[in-house]
């Protein structure tokens, strides 16, 4: 992959990671390591711990998610993240906007490929 393609992809990712984290937490609460791991299992997103943790901190400061320490069945307690009420509303709005974008893009990309 060329350098230029790489940087273009990273521009894409930055905008998407936030939505990806909200989507992941929408399906239930999770702790930091778990969020990193589950997002890393989607190589297309190419998200690392270095992106996830600062974003979690920012989402928490803006009130879209909150965190709580919970006992873990194995090992020491873990800090779990979950969507706040406000975060749920924001997620719904962002998901809707995203659908609009993907529909439009599918359309445009489909046109190009003459499907």
């Amino acid at each position, binding site marked *: 992959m060329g350098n230029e393609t790489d940087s273009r992809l990273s521009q894409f990712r930055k905008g998407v990671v936030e939505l990806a984290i909200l989507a992941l937490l929408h399906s239930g609460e999770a702790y930091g390591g778990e969020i990193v791991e589950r997002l890393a299992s989607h190589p297309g997103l190419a998200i690392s711990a270095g992106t996830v943790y600062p974003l979690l*901190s920012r989402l928490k400061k803006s009130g879209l998610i909150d965190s709580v320490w919970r*006992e873990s069945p194995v090992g020491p307690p873990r800090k779990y993240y979950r969507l706040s009420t406000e975060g749920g509303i924001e997620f719904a709005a962002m998901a809707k906007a995203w659908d609009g974008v993907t529909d439009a893009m599918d359309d445009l990309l489909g046109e190009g490929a003459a499907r």
Partner: protein
Amino acid sequence: MNPQEREAAGGLTPESAELVETYFARVHGALLVAAADECEETVDDLRAHVYEQLAGTAGTAADVTRILAELGPPEALAAQCADVVSGPAPSTPESRDGRSPLAGTLLGMPYELRVPTAERVAMRWWDPMNPNILVPRVFGLGWDLNLGAVAVKLCLIKPDDEDTPFESVPDRWLAVSAVLPVLMTLALVTLVALFQSALPAQVAVHWGISGAPDRFDSKESALILPVIMTLIGLAILGSAWLRRRPPLLRVAAGALAMLLCSISTAAYAQAVATAYGASDIGVLLPVMAAGLVLTFVMLVTLARIGRAAEMRRDLDGTSKKGSV
């Protein structure tokens, strides 16, 4: 206005054209302020687009106002253009402070020429959420050490153990970060009191890589640099506490004071050792290393105390151990 635009504006009343031109003059002004002049071309295209749209109307002032209203205020439009051209602001804490020609990379090495703020310094040196151990230097060329990333790499803490570094640490523990540098200063003062009068008139003040002293000075002058460095550290520490800065800044000031004091102590102790016949720098490096390790241990301990406080807040409310 260039010739094509004058032609495009031909069908408009002078008042309408004036409105459009005033609007775009403001956009250009805002772009200059944002240092985003690479957007000028985009804005010229936009202006042509506006004239095109106006061609399909009567070209009255009301039409102009309506079409321009769709574009929004000129300043917002300029900000939007600047964003598209330079890409959205990255979300990493590193680049939070925005773009500036005073910071960037030179031949692959980061440089930073903005005057460092206490916040920026503290965030670079203790940033557990950033996995990079080497971070762009707070001021100058090269890299600094991110002790937070070192602690994470050593599995001493997790990146998100504390919501905000040291924020939940109880006051009495926070005070440790101020007491330690004061104790270290007292140790230096004791060292000077014990040895200063017994030192020869000329002492070593600088050592080569081989360990042999390569610069000598009077024993009084030899004290000047250590004293100034230690006082700078204590002044930064005192100001952070007197001005009730956030915990991260107070702890960072304490860590800085400890490092400066340990460098001063190491230099003075080495001068004493050399005067007493030491032929290597077997005192300088261990004392400096001990200062760095002690500082690191203090930071990690405070981070873990902060984590414990957060846990207590969340877990005590429900139940004690294991019953969840």
